[in-house]
């Protein structure tokens, strides 16, 4: 398998307390958490957030294996960050500080990304679209297509695994025809990917077109006036989750 077992942010239904939270509550909480993790400066703060993450993962009943596998593409970004920081160490000469910074920034990024990825893992795409929709609605006043935008993100998440499978299949087919995807210099490698990218784009456009037609056939016309089978209901747990996140984010300025 080259790609098809990568499932970036695919919904994992476990029916946990986290899954049952209102998507808006999850979005708000994530917003607070992220804005608090970003400015983290020392290992103490980072440990605090790592523990918080562990607690959320535990409550979500999603296994670490599934979480890490789902987040695997992100680790490239982390590796890149790490390498870049090391490189700067090489140029500045201050090895110990830079090494510390490389390790710290990478870890912070890991915590941040894992928090972020918990959102789609615990929220079904359409629900997430609903939540986003309510959050984006104020922007509609300025002509921002909140409905469409939210549905687009939901649909994109829904189709990630399918496109991964397609990509995997195309890579295999081109390798079978003797394509050399992993040889030569950077330019040649990039060029070698055209036989993969072109069919992939054709497939993506075709699918997008078919999906749009199928959605229209089921009466979707931009989402205005849409109701829900399970309307979003703000519950006690949702308030609690947001308050906990705010407190966690705030408490942290105390240290």
């Amino acid at each position: 398998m080259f790609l098809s077992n990568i499932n970036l942010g695919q919904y994992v239904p476990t029916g946990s307390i986290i899954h049952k939270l209102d998507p808006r509550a999850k979005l708000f909480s994530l917003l607070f958490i992220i804005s608090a993790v970003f400015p983290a400066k020392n290992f103490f703060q980072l440990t605090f957030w790592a523990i918080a993450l562990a607690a959320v993962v535990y409550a979500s009943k999603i296994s670490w294996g599934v979480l890490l596998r789902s987040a695997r593409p992100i680790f490239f970004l982390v590796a890149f960050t790490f390498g870049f920081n090391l490189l700067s160490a090489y140029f500045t000469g201050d090895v110990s500080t830079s090494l510390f910074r490389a390790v710290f920034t990478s870890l912070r990024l890991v915590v941040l990304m894992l928090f972020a990825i918990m959102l789609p893992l615990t929220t079904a795409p359409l629900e997430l679209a609903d939540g986003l929709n309510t959050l984006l609605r104020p922007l509609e006043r300025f002509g921002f297509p909140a409905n469409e935008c939210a549905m687009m993100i939901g649909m994109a998440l829904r189709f990630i695994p399918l496109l991964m499978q397609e990509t995997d299949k195309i890579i295999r087919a081109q390798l079978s025809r003797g394509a050399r995807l992993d040889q030569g210099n950077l330019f040649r490698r990039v060029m070698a990917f055209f036989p993969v990218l072109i069919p992939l784009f054709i497939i993506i456009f075709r699918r997008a077109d078919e999906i749009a037609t199928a959605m229209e056939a089921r009466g979707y016309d931009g989402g205005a006036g849409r109701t829900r089978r399970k309307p979003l209901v703000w519950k006690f747990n949702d308030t609690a989750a947001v308050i906990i996140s705010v407190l966690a984010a705030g408490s942290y300025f105390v240290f």
Partner: protein
Amino acid sequence: MLNVNRKQKNRNKIPFLEVRSVSFSYDEKNTRRTLNSVSFFIDKGERVAILGHNGSGKSTLAKILGGLIEPDEGSCVVEGVSMNEIEFRALRKKIGMVFQDPENQIVAAMVEDDIAFAPENQGLPSNEIQSRVDRAIVEANLLHKKDSPVSALSGGEKQRLALAGALAADVECLILDEPTAMLDPKGRLRIEKVLRALHGEGMTILQITHQIETENFDDFDRVIVLSKGEIIWQGSTLEFWDRAEELGFELPDEFKIKKFFEDKKIKFPDALANFDFNFTAAHDGKKIQKHESKFKIKNLSFKYDEKNFALKNLDAEIFSGQWLSIIGRTGSGKSTLVQHLNALYKIQSGEIFFDGQTLPQKGEEVHTLRQRVGLVFQHPEDQLFSPTVKEELAFAPKNAGFKNSKLEDAILYGLECVGLEKKFLDRNPLALSGGERRLVAIASVLATRPECVVLDEPLAGLDASYQKKILAMLARLRDEGETVITITHDLDTALKFSDKILILRDGGTVREGNPGDVIEEIMNVLEPEAWPDVLRASAEIRKINKNFPFIYDYQEFIKCFSQI
């Protein structure tokens, strides 16, 4: 046309859906018409098949009938009201649609959420949405999957989910565009069962298809035949069967058998219980020649993850110059096995010998291997990327290091193999028909003259004429000494065309042998829905008359009754 006029004269009621000289063209200048002055009607509660080969314009017609695209000329009228005067939402409550690929119709991650999509779009209160979902899920026979994520459904279940999604809009009419084309026989049968029940309850059903299949050959009230954008014939299903062959459609064997016994006035199968059959030696197996071993596979196991084996202790031998068909249910390891043969999957445990040598696993040797063992994936036309057919055909030979005249030869050889003319070389693959694209994709693998060619479901989704072309081509390659390996769902072609059959179950070999010798194992491994019609009929007779052999060929089947 006469037919229509006569019928229309006798009519006084308003049809449910009427199509009035509809024309449509995809290009602006209106030079090539996809649909040309198409007219017909459908009454409420009718089940009508629109038959057409690939490229006949039937999918475009489906979209026009569903009000998803507007015709350039003419109009569609629903219960006396022109479609463009009907409000979008009102129309969506009248006509529901199901398309070919279930994946492209499912919007949600959970079964119930997906079914709810249409009623949600109608702005219904949530309790009513739930009752719509509850009803649709039963109608589509998916109740047992109520709380499942969509990813846990089989292909057939996904298509039934798409059907439920359309039903939940509370529609009066369903338009289905090749709803079973991507499903296995069992999945097809289940969809047909659901449609039959819906039709019984008064649903108007319009089914667009390229072939009337065994599972639904007597379900339609009427048949409309579309060819090159025009209606060339319409009439009752019974009338259709008399004309089917001249209209370019094949009769399912099951239909022929039924008719055979009806003509002979034999009650099938009861009347055959004590019948003494007169056999000419049935399926004596293909002539056995001495062949050398091409692949020898020993104890091959493969796992995608820690838990599940995709292949488990598989042993098999593939002989050169033979055509081997690999059969087995979905998930039996067929695709995983063949992707070992050109080292796309690395051997985890076990051994593979290619021409007596250990199969290379890395480095330049793998590239040479991939030139010698050509692999054609499912729907290979989706992997084309070049601006011209010529460049597409040059891709594999160039990768194999072919240059100048050798390269030219390779391109022409590929083209010749699949029987396309030279004028195709300068054309854009994307502008070709589906069948032609399939041929180009196969040619692009054959261009390097592999000594062994492996094809995964090479006939899937093609018209009968292209299927025949590809089968003839593979037979010719085999006769020229190439080793041909195909994976197929289509037992009928596997039995009739291949020299050897390899039956897989749960990642292991059940049996390997001549088609005539492995029938009983096939019947054990695959469900009756997947058997060829003739085989199913002979099994039926055998139940009450042990003398009757297992036969899969219609002509041979008929011979058994020669003295009646």
